[in-house]
């Protein structure tokens, strides 16, 4: 069972690597942020699988925190510079 979890985690890492193409090619900033959010969710899944494979409860806490980090980055982007431009007009 453990090797199966590790196999699925490795597969998810592969999808993350494939997602890098979108970050490289993404025409708009939002595409890059989307790919980053996909990495966040895939990272949470990988962490949960590793936690189940090695019975490490600390990894589950890491997955919990990881899920929040992607939100902070996108919120900073959305609430950042382009928002202030609107008020200046």
């Amino acid at each position, binding site marked *: *069972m453990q090797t*199966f*979890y590790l196999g*699925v985690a490795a*597969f*998810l890492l592969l*999808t*993350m690597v*494939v*997602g890098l*193409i*979108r970050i490289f090619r993404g*025409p*708009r900033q*939002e*595409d890059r*942020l*989307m*790919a980053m*959010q*996909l990495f*966040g*969710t*895939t990272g*949470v*899944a990988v962490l*949960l*699988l590793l936690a*189940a494979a090695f*019975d490490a*409860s600390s990894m*589950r806490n890491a*997955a*919990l925190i990881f*899920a*929040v980090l*992607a*939100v902070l980055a*996108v*919120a900073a*982007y*959305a*609430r950042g510079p*382009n928002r202030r*431009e*609107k008020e200046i007009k």
Partner: protein
Amino acid sequence: MHILAVLLCLAGAFFFLAGTAGLLRFPDSPSRLHALTKADNLGLGLIVLALVVTSSSLAVALKVILVWLLALAASTSICFLLGQSMLRQDQRQDQ
């Protein structure tokens, strides 16, 4: 019991793949955003279900479900923020 977990994990991994494929192949940003947030949440949900089925204690199962709910809330808010900033940029370009 393990067979069920294996199947759920495979389905979850498939949806992650679908999300990534959608991210790469869809023509414009909003459709990419739509495909992305739906697919990876479903993938995560299925993997979490598989972990819950084979989890040793109840506390572990509840914590994994908590992580999934948080990921759901995170990705919906992200979807909204990105959609809003895209819309605002498009409006600004139209002026």
